[in-house]
């Protein structure tokens, strides 16, 4: 049990680092640095906790991104930054890079390497599974982040009373 929790915290920590790295690449303001790390950590924690309980990666990513979207509203008030500044970097570590890689790998095998018909069928399966997982995770992330503001029907966080 302790092992799992430690592993979870380690993975979340690296999610936070990844969020921070992208934040610096996108030149976030200095007073948003800790927030971005914390949000990256939180998003990673939620996603991997849910995936540990066998929640599908698409739903897990959606809920984690939704969490980032919601939390960034009060934070935008508190440290006086527009919410995009800390809603985008924490979501980037959840971009389904591995599924993209697997898709490309399977396409490549299918096109250039594999001659055996039954293995080619498996490759088609891999292309579709990984490709569509990647696509739906992407949609889940973007909609999850955008949804809180859309639901509140406000075009500026300053108009939301907390």
């Amino acid at each position: 049990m302790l092992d799992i929790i430690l592993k979870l915290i380690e993975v979340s920590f690296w999610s936070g680092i990844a969020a921070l790295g992208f934040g610096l690449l996108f030149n976030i303001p200095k007073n948003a640095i800790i927030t971005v790390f914390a949000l990256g950590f939180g998003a990673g924690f939620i996603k991997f906790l849910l995936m540990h309980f066998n929640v599908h990666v698409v739903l897990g990513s959606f809920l984690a991104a939704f969490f980032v979207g919601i939390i960034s509203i009060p934070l935008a008030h508190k440290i006086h930054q527009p919410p995009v500044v800390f809603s985008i970097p924490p979501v980037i570590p959840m971009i389904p890079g591995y599924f993209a890689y697997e898709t490309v790998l399977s396409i490549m095998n299918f096109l250039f390497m594999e001659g055996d018909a039954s293995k080619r069928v498996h490759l088609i399966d891999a292309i579709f599974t990984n490709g569509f997982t990647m696509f739906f995770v992407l949609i889940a992330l973007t909609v999850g982040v955008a949804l809180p503001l859309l639901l509140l029907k406000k075009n500026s966080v300053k108009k939301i009373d907390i």
Partner: protein
Amino acid sequence: MNDTSNLIKTANLLLDISSLLMVSGANTNRANLSIDRFASVLNCKAYSLISHKTIIMTLTDEETNESCTRVQNIPPYVIDFSIISAISKASWNAITENWSIDQIIAEIERIKQLKRYPRLLILVAVSLAGAGFCNIFNGDYLNMMMAFISTFLGLFVFQQTNKLKYNLYIRLFLGSFIASVTASFGILYNIGTNPQTALATSILFLVPGVALINSFHDLLENNVLNGMVRFTTGLMTVLAMAIGLFLAMYLFQLN
């Protein structure tokens, strides 16, 4: 100064602000909102068509009903959240303190001069992010080291080719190719338990996250054209990355 030249000055300022926002990675709605806020401070009404490369704006003076239309091209996109944040703050301050046009121009000039983080810091931070990705996808610490080195070299090439003013997609291809070739050595010499992870995560620093997220933002807010443009840009980026990865894997015969 007569009214017309004043109006032109205002229009140029608003165009400058909106193109700065678009370049820095704001979504179309935010650019429109900022224009409206600044225009209301300057007693004008602004109507604009914002596309990916050009902004067309008609500005009407609310007192004299005079109007002028200006067009401005948008320079290449460089994502910079500090600028978005600073412009957002400036727009609120301008409303509450009722700034004059010269005050706003001075503030925008100051914002344009804002510095980015030092290059070395960005290189190390993004490489650490690459190592972080590797950990997320079950890499051990040796794999993470490979991911770190690959990302570092890839990003270095990506930045260096920017200085030489290469085409963006050529740069993406080169960055992804260099990163994946470096990571492929990890597979060749079997470094760590999961060397494939390092290869998969080494090119993630190029992922068009902002373009894709903004694309869906724009689509959800009915800025369909800009949303489609951003999505296509994101898709082209992924394609360029994939070709780089593809070539490296083909050279190393990894399958």
